[in-house]
């Protein structure tokens, strides 16, 4: 779960001047981490294609996270994004420092937040590192799309992922599914008609309708039900079925 006892690695600082923080050379820049979080999220969306139907709540939450990241990247104009692109994908074992990404989303100021480990509850301990198994992340040419500078392309592949996920949850063959549900759909209206006694117009309160609907049912707690059941049982015994 958590990487423990991981030694700090000396990071090449050439790609991003912001990383050159004295004594904190292992902490990747905010934009790098944000990019990594975006990649991780996109991978999570892709992995949704399992045998069992994906969890829609999880997919929606991840998709919203991706949107937030991309919106922020767009707002930032991706000016800072040039750095990671020039050196290619950052090694995954320097993926994410929880401390940074869990901070507030950056405001309009341009500077990268200085990791102020002085206030951190983890002071004195190595920063937490999330290790993403490199096998999980697609290294296909398609993934380079996600690394590109342009938010438009990011959005394109993201949209494609979203489409794929929501498509599996939607009808694959609309016409047959329509047929399957058509009976039930129309029965809604039938029920509505029965309950309200009206064909069109405003629908009155449901409870009133249900009261009439359930009028025939015996009152709860009546002894009739249990007597009848026992009587049935006795009759069954007598006729020796």
């Amino acid at each position: 779960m958590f990487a423990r006892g991981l030694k700090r690695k000396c990071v090449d600082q050439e790609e991003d001047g912001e990383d050159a923080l004295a004594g904190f050379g292992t902490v990747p820049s905010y934009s790098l981490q944000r990019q990594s979080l975006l990649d991780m999220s996109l991978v999570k969306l892709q992995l949704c294609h399992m045998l069992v139907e994906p969890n829609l709540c999880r997919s929606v939450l991840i998709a919203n996270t991706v949107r937030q990241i991309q919106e922020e990247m767009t707002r930032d104009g991706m000016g800072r994004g040039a750095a990671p692109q020039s050196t290619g994908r950052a090694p995954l074992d320097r993926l994410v420092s929880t401390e940074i990404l869990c901070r507030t989303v950056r405001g309009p100021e341009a500077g990268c937040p200085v990791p102020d480990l002085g206030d951190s509850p983890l002071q004195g301990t190595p920063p937490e590192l999330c290790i993403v198994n490199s096998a999980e992340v697609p290294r296909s040419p398609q993934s380079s799309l996600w690394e590109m500078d342009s938010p438009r392309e990011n959005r394109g592949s993201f949209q494609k992922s979203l489409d794929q996920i929501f498509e599996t949850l939607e009808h694959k063959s609309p016409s047959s599914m329509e047929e399957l549900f058509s009976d039930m759909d129309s029965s809604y209206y039938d029920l509505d008609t029965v309950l309200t006694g009206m064909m069109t117009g405003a629908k009155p309160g449901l409870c009133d309708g249900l009261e009439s609907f359930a009028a025939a049912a015996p009152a709860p707690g009546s002894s009739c039900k249990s007597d009848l059941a026992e009587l049935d049982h006795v009759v069954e015994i007598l006729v020796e079925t």
Partner: protein
Amino acid sequence: MPSHRMPSEADIISTVEFNHTGELLATGDKGGRVVIFQREPESKNAPHSQGEYDVYSTFQSHEPEFDYLKSLEIEEKINKIKWLPQQNAAHSLLSTNDKTIKLWKITERDKRPEGYNLKDEEGKLKDLSTVTSLQVPVLKPMDLMVEVSPRRIFANGHTYHINSISVNSDCETYMSADDLRINLWHLAVTDRSFNIVDIKPANMEDLTEVITASEFHPHHCNLFVYSSSKGSLRLCDMRAAALCDKHSKLFEEPEDPSSRSFFSEIISSVSDVKFSHSGRYMLTRDYLTVKVWDLNMEARPIETYQVHDYLRSKLCSLYENDCIFDKFECAWNGSDSVIMTGAYNNFFRMFDRNSKRDVTLEASRESSKPRAVLKPRRVCIGGKRRRDDISVDSLDFAKKILHTAWHPAENIIAIAATNNLYIFQDKVNSDMH
């Protein structure tokens, strides 16, 4: 992922629910089974078995299915069980998996008819020539047999995964909620249901919010609440409109801009909502807190309790390993004075609303011998560490207590820890510290 199931994965408990008197406790598991426990009456002859729970009945509720149209499996895992109020000698409960809700009737048989005319003791037909007189069969006592039969199957009501069911106080209807819709059923009618909430957008690409839980008000049969993945609660009145897309009340806490991060929305997603027994409050659980809401105040919760705030700085790791999507449940005690919820490392937490004291307890075999008093636990985040404290980094995130239940009247709690069920009883008023 391995293609075969691990040996005990089917035994993972997925829901726990006391019935209305607390005499029965039902559990559902990932393998689609329901196990019902019954509380033994306290007897003077055996003072040590003071109202303990024993297995009463076990049955297979749901089987795995395959949706051929979508080429997807439908899991048999029992998502929720809800008891119906008892109306006669039989007990009834609703159990549901992702797609289908079933009504089960549980009856006892402790008498057996003897003295048939046409059949002998083994059930074989008698030679009629030997029958010279007629007798009336007599009911003789027998060992108790518990029989379970499916009475209704409510199928094809949901396109998405059912996350909640709730029986109405009218005892005749119930609702089932999936990610995008809520349906109202009549207990006697299986071939139709009434859609009362639909938040599915016209274009699925516009989907940004799902329904996460829902419940009927305990007293007002027209009111129900549903929670969303964005952390909001909507109280709906079925008398106002047939399709309750417009809520009567929207409960939402404004976001604190200073603590916003990329994970803010995920951790605000409400995983469970429960009305208090009084019907005056609602309890919600999101990833890091439990909150008490007053039905009369929509602007913010009246109480917020931190369940495991030490995880706030670990959210990215918890996102990476998917733990951030864990759905914890919450529970009220009978008098609505204490609330309870689960956490990681087999810990569960209780908060006393009056004294504002809270306690962390552990459900594990090592720390719980029969009739032993549970020792409070502590999680330390660095700095001074006491002898039995657990450090945050040592927490076992595979041991999660998602499902807990509180006896409706007494201080008895049921805790599901993966595939183990713990039942704790409070004989003496315990101190919270």
